[in-house]
């Protein structure tokens, strides 16, 4: 049987900020429908690795392939890449001057040329998915943090990406609000969405991950299925999982 090529491939990726080596030969891949969770201490390079996938950071050497595209190529079509890849940030980054509907409609209308009426319907559908149907015409500041983050997820989903990236999306939320955001991501996983998730929530990671990459000092220190979270092979991961941080 032919093996389908993975949607996201990082191959010996190196990246430094000045003298600081952030990514030190990182390799991993994410297949279609896979849920890969990146864990590690602050400064281990997991967020940088994630941002490189959407080319918010340029890598120094190595290769990154996303949906058949060479992300590290100098002539990369960024707009095409970012139509395939959705990204959600820790700080939601909803556009404060636009209503939730307008936030969601903006990219489909201006990037894909969708008609406004159709885009509004799409916005309503996406908001229903994240349980925010009644917030269509609210402004971001009228929403709680958890609601804003769910709206931000809906905004990304409206572009129908092939891969979703989540960069510590619950780190700014209290535990109660965290739950509602994680539920949305779990529903996406159940729908078969390909996802790369950077998180500090170990319980969530255990529940959702099909693959886990544990990063330590810019390297992939341990990788495998979700089982490595319960039976870690290296003392570093054991310690990391043990402390829960």
């Amino acid at each position, binding site marked *: 049987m032919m093996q389908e090529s993975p949607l996201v491939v990082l191959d010996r990726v190196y990246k430094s900020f000045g003298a600081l080596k952030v990514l030190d030969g990182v390799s991993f891949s994410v297949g279609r429908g896979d849920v890969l969770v990146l864990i590690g201490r602050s400064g281990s390079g997991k967020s940088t690795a994630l941002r490189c996938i*959407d080319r*918010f950071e340029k890598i120094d050497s190595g290769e990154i392939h996303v949906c058949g595209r060479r992300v590290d190529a100098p002539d990369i079509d*960024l*707009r*095409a890449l*970012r*139509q395939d*890849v*959705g*990204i959600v*940030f820790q*700080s939601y*980054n*909803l*556009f*404060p*001057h636009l209503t939730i509907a307008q936030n969601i409609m*903006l*990219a489909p209308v*201006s*990037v894909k040329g969708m008609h406004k009426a159709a885009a509004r319907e799409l916005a309503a559908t996406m908001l229903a998915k994240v349980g925010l149907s009644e917030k269509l015409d609210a*402004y971001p*500041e*009228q929403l709680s943090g958890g609601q804003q983050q769910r709206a*931000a997820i809906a*905004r*990304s989903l409206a*572009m129908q990406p092939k891969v979703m990236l989540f960069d510590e999306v619950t780190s700014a939320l209290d535990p109660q609000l965290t739950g509602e955001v994680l539920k949305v991501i779990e529903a996406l996983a159940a729908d078969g969405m390909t996802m790369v998730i950077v998180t500090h929530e170990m319980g969530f990671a255990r529940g959702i991950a099909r693959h886990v990459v544990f990063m330590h000092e810019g390297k992939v220190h341990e990788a495998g299925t979700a089982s490595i979270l319960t039976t870690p092979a290296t003392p570093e991961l054991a310690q990391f999982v043990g402390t829960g941080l």
Partner: protein
Amino acid sequence: MGLNLDFSVVLERWPLFLDGAVMTLELAFMAILIGGAVGTLCAVGRGSSNRFIAALCAGYVEAIRNTPLLVQIFLVYFGLASIGFKFSAFSVAAVALAINVGAYTAEIMRAGFESIPTGQIEAAEGLALSRVQVYWHVILLPAIEKVYPSLTSQFVLLMLASSVTSQISAEELTAVANYVQSDTYRAFETYILVALCYVVLSLVLRAAFWALGLILFPRRRRLGTSL
């Protein structure tokens, strides 16, 4: 000694004052429209990775901010004349005022652009918006909103500063006053009246910008937050 004020001869020339006030507003309107656009583009240009464009924009701002308005007006007036262009005093005045207010707008808008968190820009880029679309949909309006009070003040100042264009005989309010006082010998009364006219014009302009703000920033209107 005693103060002997007689407004009658001045007041009976009210149509002249009205014409002058209208021209002052027209001058301000043109200058704000053109200068606002020039200044905003210039603020974008100063952040450009193209060094030539960035230096050009910075040079323009510094040149204007470090020379007097009256000299700038004369430079435009005599400069255009010396290369053979003949424009009305109004056009020259409008252009000179636009160039002037453009530089100040550029500085204000630069502060506005810098106040936009990078996360906003990354979110927009992550949604595959082009550079122009990011500026247009995500940066411009929130930036203007942040500096709207400063912009309004600057534009009101410009309207008041337009009185200087009386020096190249643009027939605006101060030029009218100069003419009326020489005609009536009632200088003090004339300038009292003109001062009052400027107060009214300032209030009109502020009201106009307040109304424009309601249109530009619907969120403020809906949520009742003042600027």
